[in-house]
């Protein structure tokens, strides 16, 4: 059915609402990549099977991730007229039990993360009260999901539908207000006014650079060319960042609607989505979403029966980090090797096929329908002076609650880590948080979208890895930049004392050296030399002067590289040297790795006082390096169980694989 007007849209919406809130029990399983990795596939299977067996009138549905990836598989149970119950860490066994409880009409709450009393659709503004008593009085001991620490401080704009809809069904999206904004824009707005509104909203690019979206759109709209291309950068290459994946897997339509609105404003006639090959599920869902858009007449000729025509094609990336860079991405779209070019020629004027091209990332596009639907004034009421709206972060690493979050700009990093993330794991000390991807550092963009590197206002180096002293910084583009850090695409990777900063710097540099396209010499050769130096340091062969050499090389690479990859590549070593110089010195002068990571500098041993003789380490050792022995005279072995022998490690045979350390549940295996 091709949608022609509001009446058609309303009809689909009614249908969608019936699907979202049916008259029977609905079991919704999060099956995004994170859910599947945690075993959601088997949970879905189990529900289907058991429901069949019990002849329970229930629907089993799949959805994206509601953010708490760590607690996946997450299952939400909808019951007509009652609160939604959200369960975490499901297993087939728990699923079977829950299905039986549902058949009896009395689901337990012992595994529940919380319950949802009210559901508000951001775009339609409609609120649905699910629980009895106006949804206010708790029905059971499970807390209000919105009030648990992980969600309390969040505000979802880009992720507005993730975890609430079946991303494979466009009707779900429309039920929550999807494509209404597009209809309004196409029928009531002039293209210039659309660009004006986006400019007024202060929306800035969410890919990391933070360039004002409205200004980019204006430059592209004003540029002369036969075609104007609208491109979505879904090549989320930063390790530790998965905002785009979650968005595409949980709600592809919000992003698509943003692109179509953008195309109308800019005067675009063809769209491309450049998506990572490593995200097969995102590609499948996008493909499905595009099919549905065609079916409903939201893409193709005469959208909504108007004069406006636009279409989108998906391109799979080939797995090259540098292709996240705009000029490299466009080269790759043209079927070439993804090498960046100098950016004094702006892609908004001469981009893909030398035509004006507007490239924004997934999150930016997903924000567009919200901005246009609720107005620039609404959007500017959220956030700080120079940074409006919210930002999605993937909060990962050695933190208690990891997952995907969306917070208003201006919140402090500490609030995110401690209030939302729950702080570092118990018994551990916070050490650093890494932002901005492998080259975490300051990337600023000039007026027309070209990347330039700027010196931070304070301090000698940009920060990619932040120590605890900087945690009270508010998260917004400007204050982070001023402090010499950056917003980045949104990966917040938390590290505690078990992470070695020299090893982390080496990790990032190796990654960048591998991903360097090799076009310009400082990046190609400089990074390699820096990796060699760091390798030496980690192997205990560091020499006096290495730190200074790293600093010098790093500055040269950053100053002389062609694109942002090399231009920011030295941030990890420079920022770790700046804040964790003592760790470098310990490696070089004391031949010691304080965090116990660098293999050449550590040895595994057994603490006799903690050893119970359980034998787990013996079983885990792949090289028979673990052996049993009787306690020596005078050796204190308070935990050793009767009739058991102590375990110990033969250094000759040990390959330092860490299997024994991992296997020991009594902290008896120690690193020295």
């Amino acid at each position, binding site marked *: 059915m091709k949608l022609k007007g509001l009446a058609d849209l309303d009809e689909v919406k009614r249908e969608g609402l019936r699907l979202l809130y049916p008259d029977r029990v609905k079991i919704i399983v999060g099956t995004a990549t994170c859910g599947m*990795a*945690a075993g959601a596939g088997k949970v879905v299977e189990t529900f289907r099977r058991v429901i069949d067996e019990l002849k329970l009138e229930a629907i089993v549905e799949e959805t994206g991730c509601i953010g708490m990836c760590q607690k996946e598989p997450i299952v939400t149970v909808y019951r007509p007229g009652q609160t939604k119950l959200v369960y975490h860490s499901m297993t087939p066994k728990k699923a079977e039990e829950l299905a039986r409880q549902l058949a009896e009409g009395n689901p337990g709450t012992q595994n529940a993360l919380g319950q949802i009393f009210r559901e508000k659709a951001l775009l339609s503004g409609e609120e649905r009260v699910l629980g009895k008593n106006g949804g206010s009085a708790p029905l059971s001991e499970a807390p209000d999901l919105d009030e648990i620490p992980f969600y309390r401080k969040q505000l979802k704009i880009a992720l507005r539908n993730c975890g609430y809809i079946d991303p494979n069904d466009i009707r779900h999206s429309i039920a929550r207000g999807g494509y209404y904004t597009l209809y309004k824009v196409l029928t009531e707005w002039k293209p210039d006014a659309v660009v004006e509104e986006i400019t007024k909203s202060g929306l800035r690019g969410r890919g990391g650079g933070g360039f004002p979206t409205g200004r980019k759109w204006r430059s592209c709209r004003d540029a002369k060319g036969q075609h104007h291309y609208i491109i979505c950068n879904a090549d989320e290459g930063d390790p530790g960042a998965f905002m785009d994946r979650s968005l595409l897997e949980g709600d592809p339509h919000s992003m698509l609607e943003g692109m179509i609105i953008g195309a109308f404003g800019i005067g675009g006639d063809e769209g491309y989505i450049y998506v990572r*090959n490593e*995200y097969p599920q995102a590609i499948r869902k996008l493909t499905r979403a595009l099919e549905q858009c065609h079916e409903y007449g939201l893409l193709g000729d005469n959208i909504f029966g108007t004069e406006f025509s636009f279409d989108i094609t998906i391109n799979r990336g*080939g*797995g090259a980090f540098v292709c996240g860079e705009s000029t490299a991405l466009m080269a790759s779209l043209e079927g070439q090797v993804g090498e960046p070019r100098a950016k004094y020629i702006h892609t908004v004027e001469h981009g893909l096929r030398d035509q004006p091209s507007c490239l924004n990332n997934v999150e930016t596009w997903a924000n567009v329908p919200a901005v246009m639907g609720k107005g620039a004034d609404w959007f500017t009421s959220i956030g700080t002076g120079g940074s409006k709206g919210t930002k999605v972060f993937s909060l*990962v690493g050695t933190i208690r609650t990891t997952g995907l979050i969306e917070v208003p700009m201006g919140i402090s990093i500490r609030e995110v880590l401690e209030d939302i993330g729950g702080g570092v794991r118990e018994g551990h000390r916070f050490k650093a948080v890494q932002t901005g991807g492998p080259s975490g550092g300051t990337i600023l963009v000039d007026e027309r979208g070209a990347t330039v590197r700027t010196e931070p206002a304070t301090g000698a180096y940009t920060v990619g890895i932040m120590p605890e002293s900087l945690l009270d910084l508010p998260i917004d583009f400007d204050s982070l930049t001023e402090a010499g850090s950056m917003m980045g695409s949104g990966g917040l990777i938390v590290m505690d004392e078990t992470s070695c900063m020299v090893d982390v710097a080496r990790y990032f540099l190796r990654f960048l050296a591998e991903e360097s396209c090799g076009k310009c010499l400082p990046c190609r050769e400089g990074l390699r030399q820096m990796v060699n130096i760091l390798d030496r340091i980690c192997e205990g062969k560091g020499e006096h002067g290495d730190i200074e050499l790293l600093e010098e090389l790093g500055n040269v690479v950053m100053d002389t590289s062609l694109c942002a990859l090399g231009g920011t590549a030295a941030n990890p070593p420079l920022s770790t040297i700046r804040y964790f110089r003592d760790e470098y010195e310990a490696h070089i002068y004391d031949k010691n790795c304080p965090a116990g990571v660098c293999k050449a500098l550590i040895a595994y041993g057994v603490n006799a006082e903690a050893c119970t003789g359980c034998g787990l380490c013996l079983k*885990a050792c792949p090289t028979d390096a673990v052996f049993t022995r009787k306690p020596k005279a005078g050796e204190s072995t308070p935990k050793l169980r009767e009739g058991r022998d102590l375990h110990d490690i033969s250094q000759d045979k040990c390959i330092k694989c860490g299997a024994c350390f991992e296997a020991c549940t009594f902290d008896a295996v120690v690193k020295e």
Partner: protein
Amino acid sequence: MATEAALKTDIDLAPAEALIAAYMDNREATIALLQDVQKHYGYLPRPVLELISERLNLPHTQLFALATFYRAFSLKPRGRHLINVCTGTTCHVRGAPMLLEAIERECKCKAGGTTADGRFTIETVNCVGACALAPVIVIDEEAHGRLTQAKLKKVLDQYK
């Protein structure tokens, strides 16, 4: 110049012909074509590259540049199952390097290589976006999260 005779190998070129036909009038889609070829054959066989070069009138060097620049492509045959060990930042700080070594030991094969029995090819990937469940490995398209050395053998045993 590759001639028809030189293309005669034990590789069945008929599927390649069909794939190429779909992209005949779109030279920009070479990467997509190579992806399809890779998916069908498991790698980019030389005779197929030669065929593409001839059919689409593209220089060998250009195809070779693409095949070696992008990580998704392999010029060597791969095993029945592809193990992708995620070495993203989170996986790294949560022990991916040791996990990779354990896989290499278990399979008796280094990353980038294929086991002697052709069962596994081991590769690394920079991030699969399942960071909250780090460390993660992906076998074929199935992700296994929160993996430990102890659980590894059980996971690998599922793939014959």
